[in-house]
């Protein structure tokens, strides 16, 4: 551990080492790599980290422990380390997580994407509850009023516009939906750009999926497509690599090779999108290693001050940008086992 840490420091070089930056591995508490990998990715989403650290400053005297205070303590602890590199045990955070959600209260491998969702939603709920002056305890979604956006929403929330055209009366109805991340289907030997275009392809609703048209007052065949109307500050993209196989009655991993560029713009924006040409930079990737959702391992690669780091629980390595291609997936359909990008974090440039 110590040897690895000092080696990383040496590799980066004392002059190149960014001021006020810390690269700390996270100890694994028994299959908690799903958690560690997401926490590292979020730590290197700059705006998210800044907001969490601000929260820590503002909430100094708060007694009540929540998942957010535990997260803030963890980030604060990393950010205020004397050493530049090393390891930290996110014990308090894991304990709190297991206490709060029984889904994570075991030693099984969990889905990193589900954890990301849970974490972002929980933090947003806590912040909203605090804003409304109510106790964060009963925040879990029983208030019907349209909640104020929090900084979690400011950072991650985008809007999809869901356009449905009734094939009988040709009426187009559109409905907006907010999202914190987009889950896209993957295809062999494609790019994330193509997967996003696929996400917004027109689908026809027919047979048992017919659409209830308000104009026709009956179920009708319809065409539907979802395009991005508001582009978020940080675009989190979840690649649906776990596919349920009915014959096997379990999930299998889809290791398809899906390339993701360091720079990204969206093609699947709606005509009324406010900033459709937003330029994104890849800042973090949560990588799933192994053959299935309940086995295997999660690691993350992040960009920090112009270079790339690989976080594998308590181990931190510097990698070259050219090594990222190792995490695209596998071009052969035969092999299920892979180290492949699972959640991509793109940060808007402006």
């Amino acid at each position, binding site marked *: 551990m110590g040897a690895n840490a000092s080696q990383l420091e040496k590799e980066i070089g004392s002059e190149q080492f960014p001021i006020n930056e810390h690269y700390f591995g996270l100890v694994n508490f028994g299959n908690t790599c799903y958690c560690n990998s997401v926490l590292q990715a979020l730590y290197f989403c700059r705006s998210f980290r800044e907001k969490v650290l601000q929260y820590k400053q503002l909430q100094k005297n708060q007694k009540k422990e929540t998942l957010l205070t535990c997260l803030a303590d963890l980030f604060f602890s990393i950010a205020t380390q004397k050493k530049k590199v090393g390891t930290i045990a996110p014990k308090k955070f894991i304990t709190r997580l297991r206490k709060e959600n029984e889904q994570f209260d075991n030693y099984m491998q969990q889905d990193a994407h589900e954890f990301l969702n849970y974490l972002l939603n929980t933090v947003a709920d806590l912040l909203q509850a605090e804003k409304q002056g109510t106790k964060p305890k009963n925040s879990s979604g029983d208030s019907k009023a349209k909640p104020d956006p929090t900084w979690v929403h400011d950072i991650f929330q985008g809007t999809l516009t869901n356009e449905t055209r009734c094939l009988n009366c040709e009426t187009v109805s559109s409905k907006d939906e907010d999202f914190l991340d987009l889950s896209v289907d993957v295809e062999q030997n*494609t790019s994330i750009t193509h997967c996003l275009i696929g996400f917004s392809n027109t689908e026809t609703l027919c047979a048992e999926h017919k659409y209830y048209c308000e104009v026709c007052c009956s179920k009708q065949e319809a065409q539907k497509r979802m395009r991005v109307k508001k582009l978020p500050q940080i675009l989190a993209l979840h690649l649906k690599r776990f596919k349920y196989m009915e014959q096997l009655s379990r999930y299998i991993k889809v290791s398809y090779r899906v*390339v993701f*560029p360091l720079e990204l713009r969206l*093609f*699947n924006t709606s005509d009324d999108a406010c900033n459709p040409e937003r330029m994104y930079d890849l800042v973090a990737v949560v990588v799933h290693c192994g053959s299935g959702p309940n086995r295997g391992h999660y690691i993350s690669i992040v960009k920090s001050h112009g270079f790339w780091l690989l976080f594998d629980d308590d181990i931190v390595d510097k990698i070259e940008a050219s090594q990222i291609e190792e995490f695209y997936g596998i071009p052969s359909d035969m092999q299920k086992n892979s180290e492949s990008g699972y959640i991509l974090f793109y940060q808007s440039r402006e």
Partner: protein
Amino acid sequence: MAAPSEGGSKDELKTHFGTREGTYKLMPLSEYSKPSRVAYNGQTNTPVKVSFVKSNDGNGSATDRICFNVGRELYVYVYKGVKKAVDLTKPIDKRIYKGTLPTCHDFNQHYVTSDSVLLLVGFTAGQVQLIDPIKKEISKLYNEERMIDKTKVTCIKWIPQSPNQFLVSHASGQMYVYNEELPCGLAAPHYQPFKSGEGFSIYTCKTKSTRNPLYRWIVGQGAIHEFAFSPCSVYLAIVSQDGYLRVYNYNSMEVIGTMKSYFGGLLCVSWSPDGRFIVTGGEDDLVTVWSFHERRVVCRGQGHKSWVNVVSFDFYTSCVCDDMGCDFNGSEEDYHSSRHCHTKESVQKNGSDSNRNSLDGNGLNITSYRFGSIGQDTMLCLWDLTEDIIKQSAGRSRTSISTLSNSASCLPRCNSLPNSQKRNSIGNDVSAHAEGNSNANTHQIQNAVMNATNKFATLSVADRKESQEKKEHKRNFSLASRNTDKVNMLKSNHVKPVDDSIKLLGTLSCPRLDEVPILEPLVYKKIAQERLTSLVFREECLVTACQEGLVYTWARPGKGVSFWYT
């Protein structure tokens, strides 16, 4: 010939595809690969590249040779084109490397005899090797101790004007000019600044005795992925991971123009046969056509489902004058080796056709450029760039604009053009010339296909123009010395903040999606199980290679027939 039914299931590989000039067919017996045919496991990601050389063996016959790399191996074979491939167990040369893998290679097209060719090979660890695969006598190493550059060689090419010099680009974002005859020295080179400009700087070696490298170019940020010399050999186009296409006058080392991808790195680049256009492909899954003369993006092509690995203009199909067949339009290869293989085509045509052919040679009648692209999506795309597209985007005041998001864009292609309209474009092009728009056109093509029958016609047009402009022409022509171009250059320098590509959006270097036409491919076929890595257009065929190490030959319409009957 009974045509087999075109692929049934979605994943089935295509063995032929149709274009307006006819059907291209995969020649199954013309396949080249490792002799063992054991599927290469593709664990390394070095792309399989293909290089060709033709040697004249005297009495009119010629031999083609092919080189390709697969993993750590490099093969050189006699290449039979659409005819049955040679015995794969008998390569001319086979090399297996340890510790470093071949990434790219290039034959010297100048020093070629029937028993000697010069082949440059670049490697993953940065070294460069010069070998004669036939004689096997010489084998020189450059950057052997990796003191010049430690990163992967991404592209290597002999410099067309200087048969002893070659240019090597690296993943470090640097390129080096070597002289084949000079040593690399025992110590790391000391450089001194020679020239610099926005986004690039050039150094020379600071030594008493000349040594390699002669020059070091630092271009943009991140890896240089590919570079290409213009057909006239004067200009150099470079594409980089930073998403920029940069075009230089190679001799004066001045920037002529730049273009930025919509997003992501640009991976490949190719010049049109007349030097009028450059096409790039990249990580935005797009092909982008840039006008050299106007310094602007002409159109983008959307069709690939993943990154575009190789783009290439088809020099043989880039001028289509009737619906029946393709006319020859001169090629770089011909230009350098002074061959006249188009005469073969002329023989097959009737008198009136060959008459028109001479017009084509003047570059006056180009109505359509053909280019191809291959990608990581295992797909081959063919595209037609027609005059109407070029004009449409030039106006910038179009009323109808096709957008990407509703991918229902349907732009007119040249095969839908009525014949009369095509004829008209002769006149249009002449007027374009009169405006001093493309001197390069005339000269380049003149050089490329100059022969006794059309020489005078060509000169009469070109000479008049020259006298109007009163400009010196050193080798072929020099666009950079023209006033208008200087203005353009200043402009483009002005609007080109290298590290802020966002500001470029909406400019001629990177128009918005709805500001230029979107092309759709005229052919879009899955032709391999693995990523495609190489695409070469030849006179009678096109050649593709994929990551698995399989090199396929696709006979052009009518060209595969002879094979079946012999």
